[in-house]
């Protein structure tokens, strides 16, 4: 596509998208919230309010500092999650 054809196509596409959303006037924030749900696939849990790590007093000693040789295998939901046969595997890992 040459540049001027592209420019025309983009401008037309944008104009019709803006027209179809009927947003001629500036949007009120609360209106934006309702309308944006139309685009993309909204996911659960996005309003999580965890403030991130470092907000609790962590670190109660169990005195196992030297005993951390690697040996675990994945054993969480990746093993059981139903994803069309794409499960996590429980292959033993040699340390």
């Amino acid at each position, binding site marked *: 596509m040459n540049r001027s054809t592209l420019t025309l196509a*983009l401008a037309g596409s944008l*104009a019709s998208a803006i027209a179809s959303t009927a947003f001629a006037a500036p949007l009120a924030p609360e209106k934006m919230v309702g309308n944006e749900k139309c685009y*993309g696939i909204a996911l659960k849990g996005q309003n999580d309010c965890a403030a*991130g790590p*470092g907000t609790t007093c962590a670190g109660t000693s169990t005195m196992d500092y030297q005993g951390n040789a690697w040996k675990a295998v*994945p054993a*969480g939901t*990746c093993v059981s*999650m139903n*994803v069309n046969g794409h499960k996590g595997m429980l292959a033993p890992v040699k340390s």
Partner: protein
Amino acid sequence: MTMTFQDSQNAFASALLHPDLPLPHGITTARGTADPLRFAIYRNNVHVSLTMALAQRFPVTQRLVGSDFFTGMARVYAADHKPASPLMMHYGDDFPAFIAAFPPAASVAYLADVAQIEVAWSEAYHAADGPPLEIAQLAAIAPERIADLVVIPHLSTRLVRSDFPVGSIWSAHQDETVMPVGEWRAEAVLIVRPEMQVEIRILPEGDGEFLACLLGGATLGDAAEAAFAVAADFDFGSALTGLTMLGAFSAFEPSEGEVS
């Protein structure tokens, strides 16, 4: 010889982080001799704290592999990656890269990308506030200039693209019961916080390519052409208005090559 306060602090910190070093000078107990087992408690506290900080920042990653595996992996990471900043919200920024190169995690191929969503989530959460671009500003752009504009992303905008449905996997783990994940396919996930709440969206295929190009500094015209190339049904207008309404951008400006 007297150590300065700073020397003494550095020696203490260094001994904390390196179990093979001798106990720092000047450590004593009530009985008068230093006790390596007691000092090991402090060493352990450092490691437990770092591991727990990772578990808080990567809850879905932890659920995916279970807490035993996660804790073991986090300890290996923490052994070589100490916080670069006292702000613990930044700790683990490169944990996804570590996971990707961690052989025991290789069987869970999507793990690193899910962790990347969790990094993006906390980065978006802590990003500076800023007003997102509004649709009215988009409508005011002269049509002949559109193709040559570049975007300035919103400070909280992050895009995670994966060969795996990592947005769906992340979402499936937000409730107590793990939901089934639908179609097994690549996903592009937008993470953004235009107001107070972090929004996470799975973008249509062409739109993921479009946004990736824009975030890389491409003009709207070049990004649109790249998106058309990967998705014939790419709709420039709805992609641009959709991303704008989600708050992904803060402004448009002419590209450097344009004479204005």
